[in-house]
């Protein structure tokens, strides 16, 4: 019996120790992004327009996720090299030592909204007190924004019934009055409007102007083993972000293709999103501060964490050229 238990433990630990080092350098880069999240349009543009290949790297979409925390779990499992993900779940995962990853570029700022039913009497965030509001998950950017909005308007978040729903289910739940409001990334607020189900109560621009949202992250292991490839992906990301600004109609077409949503919805959604690769240390400080106050993370030295978590060097080099 003792031998059997010993063997089990040894096998389990081998299994858990993960892949052995010495992975081939030529392997395609495994990237992940979020399903139907128009914030991450740069990733779809880079895939569609061949920007990755143009910069000399081969990428493979290793995962399309329903929410940021799931994608960060994939980083923790060593299943992703780079990914487009919300700054809040990325911060939470790295601060709680679940994943080892670094932010290399911004993807977008703003681009979320609180939506209430079309016939709702709610006039501002104060009217959400005592109501049922859906978020896409805890420690998502939207969880963060909702609590920030409530705090800003003097509403105790504990007095609001916050529930977790996946964004595709939110519009249906709002339509059948199972929830009174939701907060989601675009294009779900736009979709609720074009479907005639809901109206925007507050955009994230009004909650926190220019707030950083999605970021491009790399696993620390990938970054140390293949720094040139990581740099090439950042370059492709910068080109794709410029492309969205220069050719908005083509960007809309790609957005329609990847989200499966109609063109009016995507056009409406894009009005709410700011596409930029410029990083904000100040923004990350704000995330760390608020996530700590919400007791999601506990950091000994928040400032050191921010400095290590946001790497501005690679992006700075690329922009200079």
């Amino acid at each position, binding site marked *: 019996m003792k031998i059997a238990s010993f063997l089990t*433990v040894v096998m389990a630990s081998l299994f858990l120790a993960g892949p052995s080092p010495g992975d081939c350098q030529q392997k395609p880069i495994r990237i992940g992004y979020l399903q139907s999240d128009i914030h991450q349009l740069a990733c779809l543009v880079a895939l569609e327009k061949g920007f990755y290949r143009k910069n000399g790297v081969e990428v493979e979409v290793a995962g399309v996720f329903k929410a940021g925390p799931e994608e960060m779990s994939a980083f923790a499992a060593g299943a992703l090299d780079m990914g487009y993900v919300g700054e809040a779940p990325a911060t939470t995962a790295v601060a709680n030592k679940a*994943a080892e990853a670094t932010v290399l570029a911004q993807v977008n700022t703003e681009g979320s909204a609180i939506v209430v039913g079309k016939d709702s009497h709610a006039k501002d965030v104060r009217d959400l007190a005592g109501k049922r509001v859906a978020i896409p998950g805890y*420690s998502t950017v939207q969880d963060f924004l909702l609590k920030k909005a409530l705090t800003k308007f003097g509403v105790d978040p*504990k007095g609001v019934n916050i529930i977790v729903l996946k964004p595709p289910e939110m519009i249906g739940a709002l339509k059948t009055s*199972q929830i009174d409001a939701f907060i989601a990334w675009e294009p779900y607020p736009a979709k609720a409007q074009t479907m005639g189900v809901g109206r925007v109560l507050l955009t994230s621009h009004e909650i926190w102007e220019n707030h950083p949202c999605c970021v491009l992250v790399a696993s620390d292991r990938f970054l140390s083993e293949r720094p040139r490839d990581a740099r090439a992906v950042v370059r492709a990301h910068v080109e794709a972000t410029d492309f969205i600004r220069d050719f908005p109609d083509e960007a809309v077409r790609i957005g329609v293709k990847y989200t499966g949503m109609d063109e009016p919805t995507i056009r409406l959604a894009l009005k709410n999103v700011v596409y930029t690769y410029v990083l904000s240390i100040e923004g990350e400080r704000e995330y760390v501060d608020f996530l700590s106050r919400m007791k*999601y993370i506990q950091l000994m030295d928040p400032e050191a964490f921010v400095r290590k978590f946001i790497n501005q060097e690679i992006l700075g080099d690329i922009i200079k050229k």
Partner: protein
Amino acid sequence: MKWDRYILPLALILVWEGLSLIRVIPSHLLPSPINILLGLRDLMVIGMPPGYLLPYHVLHSLYRVALGFAFAALLGIPLGLLMGGSPRLRRIVNPVIEVIRPIPPLAWIPIAILWFGIGMKSAAFIIFLGAFFPILLNTVSGVVSINPIYFEAARTLNAKPKHIFFKVLLPGATPSIFVGMRIGVGIGWMTLVAAEFTGVKSGYGLGYMIMTARDIQRPDEILAGMLLIGLIGVLINGVLRAYESRIVRWQ
């Protein structure tokens, strides 16, 4: 010689802690037993999500399971007795049951949300599906396995159908009904996490708590929640077994 049952769990925990200490097991994939205990403390003191404390998660989950299980027993036992007593009814009902039974409760989630919305009713429905079939099938087999001689003897003595039901059929099937209820509540408890995937309006529930701990990236709290679900399952089984042995001996 009862102490030997503790050897393996204790040895496993010691080896686990040892391997964690020398970092053979990475803590972000499998936290050490001590870290899990600390996670349990955080669940009690801080809560997950913060402010939502562990005892309330347990209570809400128990209530959901009790509700689903109660419906399963109220429907499964009478239907099982009827089906056990009538071969014809068995023939008619069985094809439907045989098709529905293998569908995993998880596959019902989208339909459950559609029919019952988000919240208590959906979750109870999923648990009901997990508990119903073991209860029904064990009740049927309990009746079928009663020695036919007892029924014939009762009929020879001119017993009324009512008396046959209460004096022969029900007592004869009781041990098997209890087995069905124990399996049913066990499976109901196992489907809890899936049931709470349908969404939770109150913000409480052990399965919901585990999903939230995943969102906030706390594997220690995830494992603490999982172990707690296991321990509560053992406890429920123990309570039912104790009750069962009293009833069955009394018969």
